[in-house]
């Protein structure tokens, strides 16, 4: 009887361990060097507080709830803004895709508006809405509407004209036409645009808070800097990077979901 070969490590695990060790070398060296240099007094802790104090400040901010409240405010504005922006963009894109004349006629206006960074509208929105959720939501909606609109427009234009002619012959109503022909044809492309928009939503939300709006993580961040709490500032940054990564993971999930729907 032959014994099966004994493998202490399953195949692939060894390679993964090597990768893990390699990938940890740089951040570990940086963090330890940073901590040591700060302990030795080589680094100005007014600008670069040491990793241990950052961790302490972060844990304190989580425990007293301020970080979570701020996170919810930022995500609320990002989410609602994205919802408004994506729906507006999709409706506009499908409409212009179905009406070539309207598309040509509005093209100069659309191109001009699209070229203005959403953030540049912050002062104007501040005049109109004042501080608060609406200010941030509107800017996020403006930023996120364009990628969805462009995707929806391109996808609708790509629909086989003959399908739409069949719909004409069958005298399909708009609702039916949307459900049977248009939405299935544009769904995948809109998801691609939506993923770009998701990437914008968090960034724009935080940026409006940093620039003007006294709420959310961006405000916490700039407040920590201005009140000489670099430890808290870095803790917010680490937290934000984590949020960004989570948004990225959500976006990938959406992608997998949509490709499975397409199958």
């Amino acid at each position, binding site marked *: 009887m032959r014994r099966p070969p004994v493998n202490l490590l399953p195949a692939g695990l060894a390679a993964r361990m090597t*990768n893990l060790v*390699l*990938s*940890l*070398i*740089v*951040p570990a060296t940086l963090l330890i060097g940073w901590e040591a240099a700060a302990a030795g007094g080589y680094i100005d802790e*007014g*600008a670069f507080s040491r990793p241990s104090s950052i961790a302490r400040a972060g844990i304190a901010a989580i425990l007293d709830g301020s970080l979570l409240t701020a996170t919810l405010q930022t995500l609320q504005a990002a989410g609602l803004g994205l919802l408004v922006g994506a729906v507006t963009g999709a409706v506009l894109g499908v409409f212009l895709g179905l009406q070539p*004349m309207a598309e*040509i*006629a*509005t*093209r*100069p*206006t659309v*191109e*001009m*508006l699209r*070229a*203005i*960074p959403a*953030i*540049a*509208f*912050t*002062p*104007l929105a*501040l*005049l*109109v809405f004042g501080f608060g959720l609406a200010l941030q939501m509107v800017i996020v909606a403006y930023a996120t509407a364009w990628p969805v609109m462009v995707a929806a427009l391109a996808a609708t234009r790509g629909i086989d004209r003959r399908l739409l002619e069949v719909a004409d012959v069958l005298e399909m109503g708009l609702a039916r036409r949307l459900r049977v022909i248009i939405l299935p044809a544009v769904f995948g492309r809109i998801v691609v645009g939506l993923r770009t928009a998701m990437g914008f939503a*968090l*960034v724009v939300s*935080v*940026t409006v808070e*940093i*620039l003007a709006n006294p709420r959310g993580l*961006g405000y916490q*961040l*700039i407040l*920590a*800097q201005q009140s000489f709490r*670099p430890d808290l*500032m*870095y803790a*917010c*940054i680490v937290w*934000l*990077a*984590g*949020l*960004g*990564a989570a*948004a*990225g993971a959500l976006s990938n999930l959406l992608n997998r979901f949509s490709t499975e729907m397409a199958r």
Partner: protein
Amino acid sequence: MMRPILLHRFTLMLLSALAFLALWQAVAQMGLVKRSFLVGPVDAFAVLWRQTLNGSLAASMLATTHRMVTGFALASGIGILLGAALGSSALVRRLLMPTLDAIRPLPASAIIPVAILMFGLNEAMSVFVIAFGSMWPVLLGTVHGFQNVPVGLRELARVLEMGRLRAFLTVHLPSAFRDIFPGLRTGLALALIMTVVTEMQASLPGLGYDIFVAQRSYRSADLYAALIVIGVIGLCINQILVWAERRLFPWASSR
């Protein structure tokens, strides 16, 4: 056959743009919206004309463009060099990529407070933030491009016994450029955004600051004027890049 259709489309676009301006002016004049919120194009263009004559428009445009180009040049340089190293060596990739992947999801503007602590409220801070924000697409495009240099080309460089630098400049970089270019395009768009943001945050002279000042002093016509100029700059950048893409990659056009 082509010409009349093109002309027709151009006329339609021109007419509709004029119609949009007329509509905008009409809505502004009807007084349905407060004058501090909505200013008609006539007033906005009057401001632009005045700023053109007294030179302040040129000064703001120059300051903003200069800042944007400096930051973007820095981002492209770092992004391409770092990306080339990451794309050519699996070891460098395994060492650095996870760290970079951890930093990359950070919203770029979140680096602003750090930059303020490091440099103060000045030009260096602005350029650093612009470079940080616009570097990522260049970096990712370059990594992808260098990872996908065709094996045949690599072999060619080896057979011709090219030095490392020569192979990099004449074989690998041109081959990777197809992937670098879209990264540059996205990066430049981000650079304009970060420029406006840092000008607002640090009160640096430029169009972003003009917008902020206009809002604080309730001069809405100035605000709209600055927005128009930023839009025109954005449009110009995009047109230049579309043109460059056609010149550089004629086979990949009509996208």
